[in-house]
């Protein structure tokens, strides 16, 4: 019987455990807080990556606007922190004390209505989930109900990212403009800038990340996960099996948006500010790159991809700033041309069979079948 009722199969379990060991033990023990904070920053992109695995790898919906949701989540969190940082005592120097500094510079004399809910942390947490979720729902419903897909969807999401960037930059009295929302300090009086806080935030983030991994894995293992795969291949067949394809696409897109938003909110906490440069087209496509490098069909691949590409980016740009773009561009072409299923594909095709051959007496073929049940075959 092929039906695998276990939550993880063997190779996934290995992936899960080794990732947990890496993130909970190895990295915190071996890195100083500066590097650990960098890892935390990289991992915020892994949230986006996990969402992209669901929506792009499984559902075949390529969104080039994930930065929009990352940014919305990040901005929600930043608005809360900014309000807390803008107490009357901190902003005595302004003409209107008690409002964020950039509002004061733009002659606003009161906090605008849509900022008000962000005085409350519970509402903020809610907004981080709800705002991107609703936004994704509206975009998704409008497009998928009318069967806009593939390339067109990609281009339209890109345009949305461009629109939102121009809006945020243009409405600087309400959004902080191109500088973004900066100088965030405390969360309920707890200084998030200290090393100690960064250390704790790192673990909070990793726990959330594993939450997302498990949620994504859950979705993948339900029938919904299989319908996503089915939809990617034979949309009509799914439709004529009695499913509303649009609804499933909307679901995948919303889920990806919410994951991205959680990542964005964590980004704000880890880095200490949010700016429109994470909303635009370039960051959105870079997030797709991370996922593609890790393997668009693999949840763990997305995490490793985000870590590795960003790690390479930091290393390369420290030592060969000129070469970084050549490296990134080349990497991307190589992945697309030669390894469409990314690192996880290389692992499943080359490394895993060897390990299996070494470790067990089972036939390699059987092992391959099992692991590919989990990872799925690459999209053609």
């Amino acid at each position, binding site marked *: 019987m092929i039906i695998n009722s276990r939550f993880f199969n063997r190779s996934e379990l290995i992936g899960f455990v080794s990732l947990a060991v890496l993130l909970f033990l190895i990295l915190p023990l071996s890195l100083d807080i500066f590097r650990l904070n960098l890892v935390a920053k990289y991992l915020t992109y892994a949230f986006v990556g996990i969402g992209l695995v669901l929506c792009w790898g499984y559902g075949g919906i390529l969104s080039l606007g994930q930065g929009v949701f990352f940014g919305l989540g990040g901005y929600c969190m930043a608005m809360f922190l900014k309000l807390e940082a803008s107490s009357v005592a901190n902003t005595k120097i302004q003409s209107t004390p008690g409002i964020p500094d950039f509002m004061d510079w733009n002659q606003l004399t009161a906090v605008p209505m849509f900022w008000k809910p962000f005085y409350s942390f519970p509402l903020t947490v809610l907004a981080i989930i709800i705002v991107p979720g609703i936004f994704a729902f509206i975009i998704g419903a409008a497009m998928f109900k*009318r069967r806009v897909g*593939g390339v067109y969807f*990609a*281009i339209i999401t890109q*345009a949305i990212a461009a629109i939102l960037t121009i809006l945020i*930059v243009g409405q600087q009295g309400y959004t902080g403009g191109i500088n973004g929302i900066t100088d965030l300090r405390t969360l309920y009086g707890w200084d998030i800038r200290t090393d100690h806080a960064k250390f704790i935030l790192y673990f909070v983030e990793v726990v959330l990340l594993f939450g997302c991994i498990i949620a994504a894995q859950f979705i993948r293992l339900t029938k919904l996960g299989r319908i996503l795969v089915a939809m990617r291949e034979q949309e009509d067949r799914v439709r004529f099996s009695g499913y509303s394809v649009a609804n499933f696409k909307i679901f995948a897109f919303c889920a990806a948006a919410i994951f991205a938003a959680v990542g964005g909110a964590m980004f704000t906490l880890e880095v200490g500010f949010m700016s429109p440069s994470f909303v635009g087209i370039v960051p959105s496509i870079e997030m797709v*790159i991370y996922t593609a490098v890790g393997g668009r069909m693999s949840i763990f691949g997305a995490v490793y991809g985000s870590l590795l590409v960003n790690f390479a980016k930091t290393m390369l740009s420290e030592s060969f700033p*000129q070469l970084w773009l050549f490296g990134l561009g080349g990497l991307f072409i190589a992945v*697309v041309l030669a390894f469409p299923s990314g690192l996880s594909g290389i692992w499943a095709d080359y490394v895993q069979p060897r390990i299996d051959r070494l470790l067990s007496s089972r036939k390699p073929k059987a092992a391959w079948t099992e692991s590919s049940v989990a990872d799925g075959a690459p999209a*053609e």
Partner: protein
Amino acid sequence: MFGDYSLGDLGAILAMQGFAGLILFSVYVLMALGLAIIFGQMGVINMAHGEFMILGAYVTWMTSTTVQHYAPWLFPGYFFIAMTLAFIASGSLGMLVEWAMIRHLYRRPLDTLLATWGLSLILQQAYRSVFGAREVGVELPDWMMGSWQATDSIQIPINGMFVMALTILITIAVSYVLFWSSWGKQVRAVVQNRVMAGAVGINTEKVDRYTFGLGCGIAGIAGSAFTMIGSTGPTAGQLYIVDTFLVVVFGGAASLLGTIASAFSISQTQSTLEFFMSGSMAKVITLLTIVAILMMRPQGLFALKVRK
């Protein structure tokens, strides 16, 4: 807002504003033509299109400095040489890219998008390494600068007229090549049925390569023309790419006429809006309108109704 101005003034402005829209229209058409060929005819999403344009701009810059240095007497006419060279340079690079990369990806349109994005990063850095991070200024011959005094109060920029004339010329040339020449028939045959086209003796690989090269070459000419109105820097290409794609998609991907119609409507909307509000808001509203219309009519303005 207009109460203080005389009717004559307003008329003149209206005329010039209409012309500003037409210049924007020409710019969009020039940008989008190459892309429309590559996307519409081949289904390839070339995210590096902007970089092919910038290559044309750099070629123009190099030609202008070379001519200024070695053959100053040629300077008034150098622009035509530069455009030819830009076409050849971008076109050959395009063919090289098609051979090395694109031909492996014809069945995966979304992947062409990602791979060409990688290419665009590489090209940007290459330009930066070769030409420096700073923008380069292309000096124009005197006859191309300044404006033509149509009436006392109406001035029409000469470079704008030049761009418009160029656009018309290239559009006609492209239509001829695609719709009347025998090569164009081959291209369309390949688009409609690759296997059959191959079976009747069309060298589909060659057709693909030249089609892609043609699209990129036109991008090169566009880049060359842009040196008259815009800037030439390593990352300038990225500014155009989203607009360009929207023009093509909005027009209906497979239709040249659609591309032109969409460039026209988008440019007129934007330049009209720009007159009544700030540039930023005009852009936002234009983009939003396009996205909204595309959501309602995903196939774009001009699309053939066909049985799937």
